[in-house]
């Protein structure tokens, strides 16, 4: 029965693909706005979007200023807008959970094995002048809310990265000696040009309806679209890159950077105190068709436990990460690999004290049993593409951390749970044209939210959350 449903779903997605291709077949020049700006095709900047080539990184770090400005003295030059959309079918291996007390069975995720339109994004992106450029992404999530068992849509601001950059080339230099820049953005690491850091790291797309591990470090998307940060960076001889940014809650004048986020919902967003530092240091080198980066990044975030009461004591999250990237890019064969390891020290100065005093946390904030916890995330991914058209990816991920009953609960026999999860991803990609990407992705869990088997006390095993995800991703 499940196979039949999956087959129907995959058939439907194939039909959707045909329709999409049919619609766009006559619009081969309708490419995303940066491509319209530069006159170049996707492979100039992307190995496979969103992963950047060396030229793509240069384009980003020089402020998205290569090519034509959207508006010049001669008038509008191109439409500085683009759209992106995804539709998919997801199969969760075991989508039923049975209450051990009542015996009632419920579904884990909705629309299992059904074709869903995940949502889409509208981009405003382009070059302002030779020194300024950027992009603003607005995303409609078609599966954002659940009301009376029905999924509903919601739209909100997504990633924003506005830049100013200056290239310094002394007389006689063969390439810029320095690139200096500034970034104004709403997601720590969204400004990063390497695909080993979280915002643009693998997986590049995930099932919209899937049960996923609960724990993640705060720099790994925790503050996305909730904060606004201003940063300055310098890139010396395309070898040493250094950046320092400072983030604060995107309120008051920064509200545009979190427009549409559930800021009035308890636990809906993070509220951070004053200015919170972010840093990035990287060594890069290119030789032949190869490029390598070895670096470190991190941030310290002082978080108000109750986002609806942004005052008083805070919890402190200290994230320190190492990362590396290797790329071999040629016309026929492309191999890329990225890895990162993030250490997060969670100092629950406010929440732990509240739990000790009152037995409860502050608002919807955490309720830790420990004053300090650790959370560590490891990610490793390797991809091969043939002619930038046929691709395969293998990835490993692992999250480990302190056992804390207040945060992660206990097993039925009283053992304190950890945030530990681990697994792998196998992905196949096919890009029939540069703007369309077909993804078949399998995610397997060897550990989930602290355990391999019966991790939640309902008899559910980690592998029950494995997903097979077939996705159509288009960008024009």
């Amino acid at each position, binding site marked *: 029965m499940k196979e039949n449903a999956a087959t129907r779903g995959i058939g439907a997605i194939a039909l959707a693909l045909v329709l999409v291709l049919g619609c766009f077949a006559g619009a081969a020049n309708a490419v995303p706005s940066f*491509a319209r700006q*530069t*006159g*170049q*095709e*996707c*492979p*100039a900047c992307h190995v496979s979007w969103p992963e950047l080539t*060396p*030229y793509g990184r*240069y384009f980003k770090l020089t402020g998205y200023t*290569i*090519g*034509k400005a959207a508006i010049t003295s001669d008038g509008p030059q191109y439409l500085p807008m683009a759209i992106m959309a995804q539709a998919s079918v997801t199969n969760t291996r075991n989508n039923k959970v049975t209450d051990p007390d009542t015996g009632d069975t419920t579904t884990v995720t909705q629309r299992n094995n059904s074709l869903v339109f995940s949502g889409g994004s509208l981009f405003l992106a382009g070059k302002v002048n030779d020194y300024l450029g950027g992009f603003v992404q607005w995303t409609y999530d078609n599966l954002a809310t659940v009301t009376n068992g029905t999924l509903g849509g919601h739209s909100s601001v997504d990633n924003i990265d506005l830049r100013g950059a200056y*290239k310094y*080339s002394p007389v006689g*230099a*063969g*390439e*810029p000696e320095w690139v200096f820049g500034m970034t104004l953005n709403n997601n720590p690491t969204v400004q990063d040009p390497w695909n080993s850091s979280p915002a643009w790291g693998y997986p590049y797309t995930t099932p919209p309806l899937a049960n996923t591990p609960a724990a993640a470090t705060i720099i790994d998307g925790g503050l996305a679209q909730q904060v606004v940060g201003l940063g300055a960076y310098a890139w010396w001889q395309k070898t040493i890159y250094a950046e320092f940014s400072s983030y604060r809650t995107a309120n008051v004048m920064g509200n545009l950077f979190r427009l549409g986020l559930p800021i009035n919902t308890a636990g809906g967003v993070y509220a951070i105190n004053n200015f919170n530092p972010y840093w990035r240091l990287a060594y890069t080198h*290119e*030789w*032949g*068709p190869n490029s390598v980066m070895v670096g470190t990044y991190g941030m310290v975030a002082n978080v108000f436990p109750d986002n609806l009461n942004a005052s008083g004591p805070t919890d402190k999250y200290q994230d320190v990460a190492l990362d590396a990237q290797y790329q071999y*890019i*040629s*016309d026929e064969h492309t191999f890329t690999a990225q890895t990162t390891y993030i250490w997060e020290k969670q100092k629950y100065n406010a929440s732990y004290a509240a739990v000790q005093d009152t037995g409860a946390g502050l608002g919807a904030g955490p309720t830790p049993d420990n004053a300090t916890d650790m959370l560590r995330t490891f990610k490793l991914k390797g991809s091969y593409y043939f002619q930038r058209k046929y691709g395969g990816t293998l990835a490993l991920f692992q999250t480990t951390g302190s056992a804390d009953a207040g945060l992660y609960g206990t097993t039925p026999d009283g053992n304190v749970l950890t945030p530990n999860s681990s697994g792998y991803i196998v992905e196949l990609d096919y890009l029939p044209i540069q703007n369309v990407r077909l993804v078949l992705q399998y995610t397997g869990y060897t550990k989930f939210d602290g355990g391999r088997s019966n991790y939640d006390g309902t008899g559910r095993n980690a592998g029950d959350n494995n997903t097979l995800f077939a996705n159509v991703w288009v960008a024009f």
Partner: protein
Amino acid sequence: MKRTGCAILALAWVAFAGVACAQDAAAIDPAAAKKAVELCSTCHGPYGISTSPDFPILAAQREGYLEAQIDAFRSHARAEKDAHDIMWGIAGNLDPAIIKGIAQYYAAQTPAPGRIQDPAAIARGKEVYDKGVPARGIPACATCHGPDAKGQSIFPRLAGQHASYVVKQLNYIQSLVRAAPVMHGIVKDLTPEEIQAVAYYVQSK
């Protein structure tokens, strides 16, 4: 006979295009030099010496040839994949004065040193380059590209070029993906082994 014909053709090109000469760096339009340093160098490397063999070395390339190629990208006359994906956009945003200046800038740069790869193939490549393949009526490359592969007039410099890039372009020309009627007639009967050998030879120069 074919060799003589090619030589006459070369002389005709010289008469038509004028004699190109190395430019005085001081005479190069600063805006064009800035474009070369801050944009072209991203793929073609500092001073036009790229490290990735996907992108040609431009240092010491013939000015007239460079200008003609950028114009060909601009007009979409060159339409192989790299041209379409990357160079159409780059060239489309350049005006004729900047294109000329960029060509002058790269023509004035110090050439890339030769790199030895597969000596046996280089020896075979030298033979084809210097003498052609008379038995199959294939003229010598040296006739147009010069005895040292430095190019002449609008015929491009090949010396020091990435071997894999030379192979790629000869394949494009052989299969008419890159429109170059004269070159197509000359290289259409070269075997893959001969193309590889010639490419290793010119890379070594």
